[in-house]
């Protein structure tokens, strides 16, 4: 019943792998040209380690882009395929949930492939020992796995009623997500600060901030000098908020899609 979606996701994962392998080859080639292999990787893992959550965050953002592509699957069916999709012996909600199930597996696979490529890259440079397994790694894993799901849910809700217009909406939604995060962190005067704070409630990016200070540097992900109020939330609350966005968005998306007319 969900064969079409299986083909779509498989194709997407194939292309993601190709892009990541190409990127890996590019980095290795550049590094080799600069003599990185000859010089080796120096330093002390205790002082210069890369926190694993940074790698998880990268996998989270890559799989969020991947999730965005498939968040418009229902919208894609609206373009002209409803006479095929809606004349199968399955309810519309049942079909949509099946498609979503396949997509969620695909998003998980995209996350795993990206993380694996990152680890392969570290291994290539003999830098695996520099990865710092901080105490909250497992919670961060859940958070950065929940991030693409939240984007998937929100964007499914945004696009489910539209046909071709859904394609553009995804792009604009990403722009809006980044802009809201940016404006919210600039500490604008009222009422703008309040407006962006409210908009940030449904912005998955607001729940993905990560900050880590090493001996000589600070790593900031999705947070600025005036970080969102949500960055003050406990990690568990962030994960819950992301999952709520995912589930809420998907429920809204399926309900909206069921009402579309061919």
């Amino acid at each position, binding site marked *: 019943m969900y064969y079409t979606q299986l083909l779509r996701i498989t194709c997407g994962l194939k292309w993601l792998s190709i892009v990541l392998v190409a990127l890996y080859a590019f980095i290795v080639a550049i590094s080799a040209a600069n003599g990185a292999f000859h010089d080796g990787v120096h330093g002390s893992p205790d002082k210069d380690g890369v926190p694993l959550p940074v790698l998880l965050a990268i996998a989270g953002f890559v799989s969020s882009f991947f999730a965005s592509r498939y968040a418009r699957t229902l919208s894609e069916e609206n373009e002209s395929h409803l*006479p095929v999709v809606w*004349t199968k012996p399955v309810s519309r909600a049942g079909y949509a949930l099946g498609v979503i199930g396949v997509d969620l597996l695909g998003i998980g696979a995209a996350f795993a492939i990206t993380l694996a490529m990152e680890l392969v890259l570290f291994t290539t440079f003999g830098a695996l020992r520099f990865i710092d397994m901080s105490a909250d790694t497992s919670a961060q894993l859940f958070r950065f796995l929940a991030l693409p799901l939240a984007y998937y849910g929100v964007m499914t809700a945004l696009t489910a009623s539209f046909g071709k217009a859904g394609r553009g909406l995804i792009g604009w939604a990403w722009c809006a997500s980044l802009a809201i995060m940016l404006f919210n962190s600039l500490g604008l005067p009222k009422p703008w600060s309040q407006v962006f704070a409210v908009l940030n409630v449904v912005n998955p990016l607001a729940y993905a901030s990560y900050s880590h200070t090493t001996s000589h540097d600070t790593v900031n992900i999705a947070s600025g000098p005036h970080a969102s109020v949500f960055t003050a939330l406990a990690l568990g609350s962030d994960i819950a908020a992301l999952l709520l966005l995912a589930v809420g968005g998907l429920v809204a998306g399926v309900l909206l899609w069921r009402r579309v007319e061919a």
Partner: protein
Amino acid sequence: MSDPTTTISINALTKRYGQTPAVENLSIAIPKGSIFGLLGTNGAGKTTTFKCMLGLARPTSGSVEFNGQPLSPEMFEHMSYVPERCALYEWMSGAEHLEMQRRSFKQYDAKRAAQLMDMFALDRKKKIGKYSKGQQTAMALVLAFSTHPDILILDEPASGLDPVHQRHVLDLVIGEAASGATVLFSSHQIGQVERAADRVAILHQGTLRLAGEVEQLKADVKVVEATFDSDAPSVNGLQSDPAIGYVQRTGKLLRVYVRGKGEEIEKAIAAKSPRSLRVLDQNLEDIFLSTVGASPSNESEG
């Protein structure tokens, strides 16, 4: 209680887009095992009717029943639909569409699908986007017929096909009906409808203008054809006669399409001293044209 001999029952179906009516108060009963042709000009409401029947569009009012029951997803196991515009996935191959069908329908018959692919000379490996329009239609037909449906709804099924494959489609439709399936189809090619259908309905501007058995309709309508020594006279005096469907004047030729035997009209025209006068049977095209008030002639009344 529904009639057990009726497979599809459309009851007072109305569909409006905003204030614009697409289908208005349409009621049709389609008997089990029949081939029912739905005729109409572009925009007559044929496709909207199909969409409302299949739940692809929400009727403004009215209902549709299949074997006395409202539409449910399970019914699609025994029902196939070929839309007017290609709804297949351009990025998928023919073989992948067959696989999609196999995974979706319990009644999918791989052997029959293979026969139909061969009959339409379709390349399984080719992407649908690389197929011609006619091949895309043929692929949709292969999928529709591969599940041995009890109910087939075909919107312009021969669209874009060459004459050989059009004939194949007609043979398939007739064959399915002979096996007990009920077929509802629309076509602009009235000759095909006349050959295949045992019943027709004519829609015009969203309303039902005429419906019945093809043979009965043909028996019920005649053409009174007269030629004159000079230009054919006007028949304005006959316009109020409800039996007159349409009047066509082309130079010295006068054709009056009438319901019933046309004896009164024949007498009235005979009084205008024509050189020749005869009463002819109408074919389905004549019936259609007289019903929708259109004519190939450039000079017409009615």
